[in-house]
């Protein structure tokens, strides 16, 4: 289905119910997946219901402050134990027969336990099903159902160089982000069309021509949909052996701040301050400005304008449920939280002037790939195929022009999950040396 040498991908992977079923079994049960953010559950008893693959989960904080991710399904007869999106509770009480679970997942209450179950039901064995691995990375919560999964940071690998700049404070302090809202919507498209778009498909810019024509950037300038702080730098498109991919910009050491949100002096001033403070803290590392990326398989981000993490939940072979978590610096002044959120809303998601066109493209790409004849013709991923990597710009496969190398890499790793490979292979341990040898 994936022909790396030819640079082609069968349409089947975007439409086939069988491929979809295998993805759920072999990929979404193993890979680390984004679940939510610590700022959504600040206090003991706080919960936020989320999804991993095709399964509902609960992200919650127990009464000692520990964070857990549980399958949101009662161990008795399967009822969803929590159907509120977020809130605070001491117990998850199942609506069906009233089994109750503590916020650390233990089965506590079983009605008529003594008379009906005495001696036969071991409550310790019937707690909520908990993920095998959970990681809190600078406030972002990730989980995996595979006990063998490597540590989160090993799995994230060098993609951390880019991802840090998404979740760290604008002034370079580690972490400190806050989720100010979540979009949830469904669209009839395969999830991978969305995931690969965020790997750095800058080639699709013409499809957003209409927003550039009317101008709705952060500074409300005509001719743009963002304040272009990347213009003075070297854009890169990067793929990592674990499947992650992104496009970012490396700006020169002496680059000056690009004014942003210009009609709001207080906001502009905040970002100006952060820009120079970040340079001071991070030195050379501050030269990297993230644009968009996908953390394998389905957690995409916008690094700066707008700023957030979007998860493409598989809902069916040709249906995706998208959840976008919008981020701001938690300790930013009120005005600095208010102005960007308005930009986020007009840019992103189903009501976003930019992303509406993406949804249109993904829907009809999916629909038009279902046909019997269409399926005989694979899709083209040959862009920049013969391009040498810019090895001086860091690890991974780095390109300095638009490329399909990043999605080719994504599907190489995708294929490895689909073949049930071991973790050495899923981490692409063989990929880097192989590339170096080829140089």
């Amino acid at each position, binding site marked *: 289905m994936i022909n790396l040498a030819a640079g082609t991908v069968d349409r089947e992977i975007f439409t086939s119910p069988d491929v979809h079923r295998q993805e759920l079994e072999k990929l979404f049960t193993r890979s680390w997946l984004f679940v939510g953010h610590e700022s959504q559950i600040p206090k003991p008893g706080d919960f936020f219901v989320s999804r991993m693959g095709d399964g509902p989960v609960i992200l919650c904080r127990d009464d000692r402050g520990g964070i857990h991710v549980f399958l949101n399904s009662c161990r008795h007869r399967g009822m969803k134990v929590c159907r509120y999106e977020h809130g605070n509770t001491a117990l998850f009480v199942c609506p069906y027969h009233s089994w109750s679970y503590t916020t650390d997942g233990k089965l506590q209450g079983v009605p008529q336990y003594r008379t009906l179950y005495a001696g036969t039901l071991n409550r310790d064995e019937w707690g909520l099903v908990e993920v095998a691995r959970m990681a809190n990375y600078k406030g972002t919560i990730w989980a995996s159902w595979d006990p063998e999964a490597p540590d989160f940071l090993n799995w994230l690998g060098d993609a951390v160089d880019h991802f840090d700049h998404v979740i760290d404070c604008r002034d370079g302090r580690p972490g400190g982000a806050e989720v100010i809202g979540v*979009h949830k919507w469904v669209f009839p498209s395969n999830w991978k069309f969305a995931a690969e778009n965020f790997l750095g498909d800058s080639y699709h810019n013409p499809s957003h021509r*209409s*927003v550039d*024509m009317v101008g709705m950037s952060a500074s409300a300038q005509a001719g743009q949909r963002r304040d272009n702080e990347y213009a003075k730098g070297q854009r890169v498109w990067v793929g990592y052996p674990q499947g992650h991919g992104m496009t970012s910009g490396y700006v020169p050491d002496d680059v000056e701040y690009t004014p942003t949100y210009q009609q709001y002096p207080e906001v502009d001033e905040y970002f100006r301050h952060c820009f120079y403070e970040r340079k001071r803290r991070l030195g050379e590392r501050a030269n990297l400005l993230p644009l968009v990326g996908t953390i394998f398989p389905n957690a995409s981000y916008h690094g700066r304008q707008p700023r957030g993490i979007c998860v493409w939940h598989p809902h069916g072979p040709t249906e995706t449920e998208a959840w976008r978590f919008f981020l701001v610096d938690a300790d930013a002044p009120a005005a600095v939280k208010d102005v960007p959120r308005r930009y*986020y809303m007009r840019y992103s998601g189903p009501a976003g002037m930019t992303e509406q066109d993406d949804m*249109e493209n993904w829907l009809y790409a999916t629909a038009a790939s279902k046909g019997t004849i269409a399926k005989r013709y694979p899709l083209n991923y040959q862009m920049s195929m013969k391009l040498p990597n810019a090895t001086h710009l860091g690890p991974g496969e780095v390109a300095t022009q638009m490329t399909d190398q990043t999605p080719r890499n994504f599907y190489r790793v995708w294929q490895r999950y689909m073949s049930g490979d071991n973790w050495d292979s899923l981490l692409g341990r063989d990929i880097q040396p192989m590339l170096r040898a080829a140089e």
Partner: protein
Amino acid sequence: MKKGLAYFELKQEIEEFLYQEADLLDTRKFREWLDLLAEDLVYFMPIRRNVKFGEHDERENTRQGEGISWFDEDKWTVTKRVEQILTGVHYAEEPLSRVTHMVSNVRLLDVKPSMEDPDEVTVGCRFLVFQSRVEYEHYTFIGRRTDVLRRNGDSWLIARRELILEQNVLLAKNLSILF
């Protein structure tokens, strides 16, 4: 509110206005529709959330002016949306969707300063918006709407539109049409 003849006269006038406004949208006279929006327009559609009984007032709907809603914007942004559709290359609305706005359950909730000489009217209604797109795509948006209308000569300007859509996860790929 006393429901004398003046109430029904005004209600009739307001209903007529709302139907005409809907007609402008459905017949794609987007620029003329923009002319009905006040310069200080508030256009707001919250996101609805599943919360525990008793927490609805406090937590069910996202709030205007904070966090993330479907729409929380001003006339500048709505105007940009219209301009975008009119570029002819906004592919989410190119080719244009077929849309019908139904308005019902119209009630005058507040009239200032008086029924006889109204300058500002708060009007509640239900909306049912049907969108048919390209060949097979279709979406139905149903909900409650509260408008604040301001007297403008012998017509009205929409100063505020709040749309309470009866959905949680949005069951549409886009909100690319105007409400």
